[in-house]
């Protein structure tokens, strides 16, 4: 083999004198373009149907312009207001003008619910005032206070100021049980309104327990699968995969039949005298139910990566360890287990991430103390229609997951993860 000829700068040249790098680039261009062309539909799909919606929705968590769009005049006035001095006549005049506008464009309802989220009890104030706004005359301050005394309350105006800010950390703050004040400060919400942090903690707790339980239950199964002869292990693998072919809903409701107080398990407990007929175990519609059902449903996601990693560990390693004098346990713990860690990492992170956003199962069997953050996000999406708060909670959840992923990378190393 001879080296390619080089030019004065030491660049390798092809036979016709053009730089070798350029020639190589040209030669590879077609195949690169073809590969890109094949991947383009998928990339477009991911971009428009996955990334863009997520980004748009996450933006909702920090951006809500309902008030600013529908109440333009008073928004300008509120931006200049220092939140401590008395509201001026100009602010009342702008408010009255905007109320007329909102009434005409029939957007007063949207505005009212927006402000109502900042200060409850203001919805009727808005609808009532808007009805009478057209007949109001200057001075507007007295006229509006005449409609309702609440307009004299500075707290109402503070709520207006918070609502008037389109880019706002209010929802994110609310998602972690903080209150965003009109003057830009944060404070903790009153005791009885702190529900989100507790819910995040519970979600993490349930996810961790489900992951650990899945590991404890799945490891021996995966080990068995990887050591049995192919025919038996294929049969067992089908049993592991069987739940995948059954609807999630069916699997969850099956657990209801199993675990409810008049269910199969409790009946067995009564028969064997482990519980009395009057005092049956409450295994469902609480955290226990969520844990049992989720562990079962997520178990295959633990077993499969473990199995595929264990299958690649040759049995000679354990034999070698034994031939050197290691007992069964030492051979397992010092030689086999360390080599199965990539599978534990992959299975663990897969189950954990699926568990942290689990929704249907906790909704059906979770009851009061077994619901998770996703059930609350759903509540805000469909019931309270507070999409911005839902987006903010989703954003917090996403941040937690990414942070844990980062920690995992630092401690275990993402390269150490193997799916087979």
């Amino acid at each position, binding site marked *: 083999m001879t080296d390619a000829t080089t030019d004065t700068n030491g660049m390798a040249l092809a036979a016709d004198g053009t730089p070798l790098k350029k020639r190589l680039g040209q030669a590879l261009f077609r195949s690169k373009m073809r590969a890109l062309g094949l991947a383009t539909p998928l990339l477009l799909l991911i971009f428009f149907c996955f990334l863009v919606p997520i980004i748009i929705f996450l933006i909702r968590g920090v951006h809500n312009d309902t008030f600013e769009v529908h109440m333009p005049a008073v928004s300008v006035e509120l931006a200049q207001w220092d939140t401590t001095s008395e509201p001026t006549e100009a602010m009342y005049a702008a408010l009255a003008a905007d109320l007329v506008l909102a009434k005409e464009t029939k957007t007063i309802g949207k505005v009212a619910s927006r402000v109502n989220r900042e200060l409850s009890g203001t919805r009727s104030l808005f609808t009532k005032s808007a009805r009478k706004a057209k007949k109001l005359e200057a001075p507007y301050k007295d006229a509006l206070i005449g409609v309702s005394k609440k307009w004299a309350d500075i707290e109402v105006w503070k709520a207006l100021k918070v609502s008037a800010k389109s880019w706002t950390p209010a929802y994110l703050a609310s998602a972690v049980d903080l209150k965003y004040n009109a003057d830009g400060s944060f404070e903790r919400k009153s005791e009885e309104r702190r529900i989100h942090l507790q819910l995040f903690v519970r979600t993490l707790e349930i996810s961790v327990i489900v992951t650990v339980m899945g590991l404890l239950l799945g490891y021996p199964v995966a080990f068995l699968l990887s050591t049995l002869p192919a025919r038996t292990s294929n049969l067992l693998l089908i049993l592991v995969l069987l739940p995948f072919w059954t609807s999630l809903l069916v699997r969850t409701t099956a657990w209801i039949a199993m675990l409810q107080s008049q269910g199969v398990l409790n009946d067995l407990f009564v028969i064997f005298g482990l519980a009395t007929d009057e005092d049956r175990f409450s295994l469902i519609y609480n955290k226990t139910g969520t844990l049992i059902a989720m562990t079962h449903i997520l178990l295959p996601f633990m077993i499969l990566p473990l199995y595929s990693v264990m299958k690649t560990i*040759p049995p*000679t*390693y354990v*034999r*070698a*360890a*034994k*031939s*050197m*004098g*290691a*007992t*069964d346990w*030492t*051979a397992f713990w*010092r*030689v086999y287990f*360390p*080599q199965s860690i990539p599978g534990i990492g992959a299975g663990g992170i897969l189950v954990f991430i699926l568990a942290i956003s689990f929704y249907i199962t906790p909704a059906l069997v979770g009851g009061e103390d077994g619901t998770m953050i996703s059930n609350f996000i759903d509540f805000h999406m469909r019931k309270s229609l507070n999409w911005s708060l839902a987006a903010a909670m989703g954003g917090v959840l996403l941040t937690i997951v990414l942070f844990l992923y980062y920690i995992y990378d630092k401690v275990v190393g993402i390269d150490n993860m193997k799916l087979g």
Partner: protein
Amino acid sequence: MAATISGDGSVVFDRVQKSYDGEVLVVKDLNLKIDKGEFVTMLGPSGSGKSTCLMMLAGFETATHGDILLGGRPINNIPPHKRGIGMVFQNYALFPHMTVGENLSFPLEVRKMGKDEREAKVKRALDMVQMGDFIDRRPAQLSGGQQQRIALARALVFDAELVLMDEPLGALDKQLREHMQYEIKHIHENLGITVVYVTHDQSEALTMSDRVAVFDDGIIQQLSTPEALYERPENAFVAQFIGENNTLSGVVQAIKGDAATIKLDDGTVTEALAVKCGDVGNRTTLSIRPERVTVGGNKTKNSTDAKVLELIYLGDHIRCRMNVHGNEDFIVKVPNSAGHTHLQAGETTTVSWGKEDCRALDA
């Protein structure tokens, strides 16, 4: 070291049988006595039962029938980790998550040896295989030959009296394999340990062993020194399996002492050494080594005409394929010495061999 029971390293297989499925015997009636300090190779084609024997000795398979004795004690019921046998595996089985030093230290740690003693022993074992500089490397950073040395050092580091090797050189290229053969042989001589070596490579077996056990079909076909195995094969399988071999088949006409008169299939009658040809009237296979055949020269009783079919130039000798007594694959090696006979393809010449070099074996 209370855990080791390998004793003086002698091994006895006493009427050992092994079956996996209860129908077929993989090992049929194995009797083998290996002395302390001996290098015994189990040689045979794949599926001949040699690896199974090694695994029974190591304790990873249990004998279906019979006793295996180690240092005079039966070990059938002793688990592998208490046998104190060093073992080198086919693919080395070096633990990938440990460094070379940790790999070697492992058998010493499980024996609860102190740190200083461990380090001294690891260093000594690594120096023995000239790998002292690699103590902090991971197995994946080593070449095949280096990994093989580490595997060897690991099997020796805890001073086992008996070391088993299961085709340890199978994954190496030819040149390295030959080099390692000598190295293993020298280590064996220096340490005085007993080695049981399994291979399917006959030249490896001949190079290294004190004695070779040729396995086929679950039984030992012949157990003898490399020299005897090559020069005096006791049956057709051994003759065919070890080295190159020309065969002629025929029927025994008469036997007188150790001389047999054989009528070959083409009708000619020849004389051979009766080894395992049975009685008069039996079919027999005559085995003649290619290098024991002389080309040209005077006609003797065992001379015959041969037609040269093909010549292959191999440098030190010329391989000549001939038609002898109807066998078209009869090989003769003509040494490339000064003034040797120059043959031409197509010519007819005379070949002859000594009576004692033509062994009448089983058909």
